[in-house]
């Protein structure tokens, strides 16, 4: 059973729709117990870091996620759902989940590239993790902040927008993607299929 955490701050309906095309065993939940015993968890996120973290903490979703991870669950954070995996963000004051070391930074506006990074871009795989993605891809990005993992081993895919930034991160069973697979047509669907089968 795949659980999509529904915090009313993400494209959970879109994500649910895409997952349903792959498997029927998916449900939307913000229930602590349900999330704690899930084997596959997806956390879609849209909006501000602090607002999202507050919603997570209010429902003790942070504890539920950690419980599930202790029981070998697989996790995918999308966009802000990926940002909260880290220690902190320049976008706000809240602490993140600290599941991956590093922080979230704002794009350097002096580089003459427009912020937000908005549109279709490609991901270059730098560490092939059991074929989670092929190099022939394009995904939709919409963000002004990006993840900067402390340990380079946690970056498995990068994207270029004035500077190269981590677009896919991974630590053990935890994955994070900056792009929106649920908004990236067949590429997004393929990525999600690969993630679910990994």
């Amino acid at each position, binding site marked *: 059973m795949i659980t999509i955490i529904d915090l*009313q*701050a993400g*494209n*959970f*309906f*879109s994500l649910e*729709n*895409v997952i349903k095309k792959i498997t029927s065993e998916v449900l939307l939940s913000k229930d602590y117990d349900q999330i704690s015993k899930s084997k596959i968890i997806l956390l879609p996120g*849209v*909006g*501000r870091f602090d*607002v999202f973290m507050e919603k997570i903490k209010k429902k003790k979703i942070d504890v539920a996620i950690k419980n599930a991870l202790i029981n070998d669950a697989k996790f995918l954070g999308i966009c802000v759902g990926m940002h909260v995996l880290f220690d902190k963000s320049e*976008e706000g004051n809240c602490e993140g989940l600290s599941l991956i070391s590093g922080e979230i930074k704002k794009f350097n*506006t002096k580089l003459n590239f*427009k*912020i*937000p*990074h*908005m*549109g*279709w*871009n*490609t991901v270059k795989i730098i560490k092939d993790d059991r074929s989670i993605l092929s190099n022939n891809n*394009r995904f*939709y*990005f*919409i*963000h*002004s902040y990006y993840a900067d993992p402390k340990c380079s081993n946690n970056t498995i895919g990068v994207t*270029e*927008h004035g500077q190269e930034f981590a677009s896919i991160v991974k630590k053990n069973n935890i994955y994070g993607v900056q792009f*929106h697979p*649920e*908004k*990236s*047509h*067949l590429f*997004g*669907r393929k990525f999600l299929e690969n993630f679910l089968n990994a």
Partner: protein
Amino acid sequence: MLKKRIIPILTYSNEELVKSIQFGSRKYIGDPLNAVRIFNEKFVDEIILLDIGNENRDEFKINYPFLKKLLNECFMPVTYGGGIKTLEDAKKIFDLGVDKISLNSIIFKNLEIIEKLVSYFGSQSIVACFDIKKNISGKYFIYNYKENKIFNYEFKKYIQKIIELGIGEILINSVDRDGMMNGVEKDLLKNLNFSVPLIYSGGVGKLEDLQDGFKYKLEGIGCSSFFCFYGENKSVLISYPFKDLDRIR
């Protein structure tokens, strides 16, 4: 590298897809649901859905159930605009799965709402939409569609002011070129250079118009008539020639 975007703009009223000419007369095109399905199958970059209300420009309530039906067909980014006035309106819309919201009429009445929305949802989710019209002396102004009058303020300065409130993207519609399919408004485009992404719409009638548009400092071009009509008689045909479009951006 980021690709330039080519975006269908669907204007609907009472759940019917319509296409206007110079923001005036409207032609019935068909079922928005059908159009969205076709665009989804053709792998559009993203889509802009605008509920433009009735021809009398009356106030209207946001039609959430219908928007939800449209969104169920979308596996690409969606911007919605039409009647958004409050944070609550915006929350309900984002909950349905919209990626960005577009603000137009409310900008003339209440700038505080922009700050509230940016604060809550982040810059990347908030688009400011400006309808630009040329006056008799050839000068460009922001046009207030609801009140049918020109907004008397230097338009670039005003747009810059809105950008400073944290807007993530600007959508500019040329009222004069709307539905005309006679090319993009070059005199307007040549003087535009904003610090946030710019989408321009109005006048695209053929691929060459898109190529012309991409020479300017914008990140995307929105098209309505170009994707809804075919041939000299403007028969209704929803299309999105992905391969041709991908070659020119």
